C-alpha cells in the first residue's frame, strides 16, 4: 500500500510536469495549428540556461533567466518561421519545426557532451516522511509549482483579454481578425508562454531523483507528446488529463516492473505510448479534443 501511494504521488508529480509541456504544445497548436516538434528543444534550452548560470546568479535568478530565455526563443521561432503560415501549409511548418529541433538539440547536446549538469535547486535530495510514505521534497515542489502555474494559466486563459484573444483566434482566426485581434501577436504570445512552461518543466525533470540535466532529457520530454495527443491536441483540459494519465501510468508500471516482467523490460518507458494508442483507437480526437490528428 505504501509503495502504491508513493508511486501514485510520484506519478502525479511527474504527470503535472508533463502537463506543463503538453499545455504549451496545445496552445501553440490552438494559436497557429502547427504541431511543434521543436518543443523538446525549447525545454532543453531552458534547462541548459539554468544549469549554466545558477552558480554565478544563484538559483532563482537563473531560473528566471531560463524561463525568459526559452520564452524568447519560442517567440523567435514564431517570428522567423511560423509567420510564414500564410504561404505554406501547416504540415510543412510542422516539418520545419523538426528541422529547428534538430539544429538546437544537436548544438546543445554537443555542448553538454557526456556531462550531467546540476541545476542548483534548493530542494536537493531531501525526503519528506508522511507516516510510512516517503516522498522526495523535489517531487512535492514539482507538484505544487506545476499545479499553481497550471491553475494560473487556466485562469488567464478563461478570464483575461489574452485568453479571449487566444480562444477566439483558435476558434475562427478570420473572425477574430475582424475584432481587431492581431494574429501575429497571439501566435507569438503562445510560443513564448509555451517556451516558459517548457523551461519550468525542464527544471522539474532534472532535479532529484534525476541526477541532473544530460543529453537524454529530450527523450524524457518526448513522453509529453502522447500526453498532449491523448488528451486532444486542441484541448487545455486534455493536456492536463493527458499529463496525469501518462505520469501515473509510467510511475505505476515502472514501480511494479518486477511483477510485470513477463511483458518485457523497459515497459515503463513504452507504457505512455501504449496508453496513447489505445485511447486514440477508441477516441481518434483524443479524450477532450475536437480535431483528429489526420487533419494536421
Amino acid at each position, binding site marked *: 500500500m505504501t509503495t502504491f501511494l508513493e508511486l501514485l504521488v510520484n506519478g502525479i508529480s511527474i504527470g503535472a510536469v508533463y502537463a506543463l509541456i503538453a499545455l504549451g504544445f496545445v496552445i501553440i497548436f490552438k494559436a497557429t495549428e502547427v504541431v511543434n516538434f521543436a518543443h523538446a528543444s525549447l525545454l532543453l534550452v531552458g534547462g541548459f540556461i539554468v544549469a549554466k548560470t545558477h552558480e554565478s546568479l544563484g538559483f532563482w535568478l537563473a531560473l528566471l533567466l531560463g524561463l525568459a530565455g526559452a520564452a524568447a526563443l519560442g517567440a523567435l521561432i514564431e517570428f522567423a518561421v511560423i509567420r510564414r503560415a500564410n504561404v505554406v501549409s501547416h504540415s510543412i511548418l510542422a516539418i520545419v519545426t523538426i528541422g529547428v529541433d534538430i539544429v538546437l538539440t544537436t548544438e546543445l547536446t554537443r555542448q553538454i557532451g557526456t556531462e550531467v549538469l546540476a541545476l542548483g535547486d534548493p530542494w536537493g535530495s531531501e525526503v519528506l516522511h508522511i507516516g510510512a510514505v516517503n516522498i522526495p521534497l523535489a517531487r512535492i515542489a514539482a507538484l505544487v509549482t506545476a499545479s499553481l502555474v497550471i491553475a494560473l494559466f487556466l485562469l488567464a486563459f478563461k478570464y483575461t483579454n489574452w485568453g479571449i484573444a487566444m480562444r*477566439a483566434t483558435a476558434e475562427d482566426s478570420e473572425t477574430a481578425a475582424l*475584432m481587431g485581434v492581431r494574429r501575429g501577436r497571439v501566435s507569438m504570445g503562445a510560443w513564448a508562454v509555451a517556451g516558459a512552461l517548457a523551461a519550468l518543466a525542464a527544471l522539474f525533470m532534472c532535479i532529484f531523483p534525476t541526477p541532473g540535466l544530460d543529453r537524454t532529457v529530450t527523450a524524457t520530454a518526448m513522453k509529453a507528446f502522447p500526453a498532449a495527443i491523448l488528451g486532444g491536441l486542441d484541448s487545455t483540459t486534455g493536456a492536463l488529463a493527458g499529463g496525469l494519465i501518462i505520469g501515473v501510468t509510467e510511475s505505476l508500471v515502472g514501480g511494479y516492473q518486477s511483477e510485470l516482467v513477463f511483458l518485457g523490460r523497459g515497459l515503463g518507458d513504452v507504457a505512455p505510448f501504449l496508453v496513447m494508442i489505445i485511447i486514440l483507437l477508441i477516441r481518434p480526437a483524443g479524450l477532450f479534443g475536437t480535431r483528429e490528428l489526420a487533419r494536421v
Partner: protein
Amino acid sequence: MNVHDPGPPGDSGLTVRDLAVNYGPVTALRGVSLDVPRGAVVTVLGGNGAGKSTLLRAISGTLRFHRGGIGAGAVAFGGRRLSGASTSAVVAHGVVQVPEGRKVFARMTVEENLRAGALGARDRRAAAEARERVLTLFPVLAERARQRAGLLSGGEQQMLAIGRALMARPKMLLLDEPTLGLAPMMALRIADTVREINAQGTTVLLVEQNAALALSLAGHAYVLEVGRVVLSGPAAELAESDEVRRRYLGIGDDRDEALLSGAPSIRPALTRWTA
C-alpha cells in the same frame, strides 16, 4: 424613407475606386466604385456569387484569409487609405465588419463574445460604455450572457454578431447579409436595429439579397452583378425601376421574371411548360 444628406463628395466617408479583386486566377470584382457618405445607409444588392462578400473583404482587409488580393483600385475611409492595411488597422480606423453567416464564437459564452468584440479597442472606459449600449439595444444578450453562443437561435446569434461588432465602437459598420436565413419577423427586427444604430451616428454599408428590406433601409443603392456595378441610384428610385422590381423584388411580368431571374435556364423553362 431614410434619405440622408450626402454632404460634400468624398467627405470622410467610405470611397471605393475602380476596385478589382482576384482569387488567384479568378477575378471576382472589376472596376467597382462606390461611395458611402458619413452618416448614410448604403446598400449593395446582388445575387449569390455577385461579389458582395468580396467587396466587404476588400474593405476590411480579410481577402488574405481567402487567398485573394486587390488587383487594382483603392479603398479609403475618412481620407485614409484602407487598401493594403491590416485588418486590425482597419478596425482601429473605425470600420468594422459583421461577417456573413454571423460567425459567433460558438464555444465561447455570449459575454466572452462581446469581450472579444472590444479587443481591438484599447480604451477600457469606452468598452464599458459600448457594452451598455449593446445590452440596451439587445436586452436578450444580457439574459443569455453566460450561455454558449452556439446555443443561441439564428436571430439571437445575428444580434450577438452585430452587438459584438458594436463593442469596437465603429464609425462605420459593414453588414454582410444580416437577415440571411432568418424568419421574416426576425429580419424586420434586425432591420429596425440597423436603423437605430444608424440614427445613433454609425455609417452603414449593408450587403443584401433581400432587396425589399435593404431598399427600405438605405438612402442609396448599388446593384452588383458578376463583379460589376450595373445599376446605382437613390434607393427609392431603384425600388421603382422595372429591372430591380423584376429581378430583385420578384414583381412584374411572369414570363420575363422567369427569363431574367438569372437561374439556370432549364428550371424556369420547365415550370413554364408544366404551368
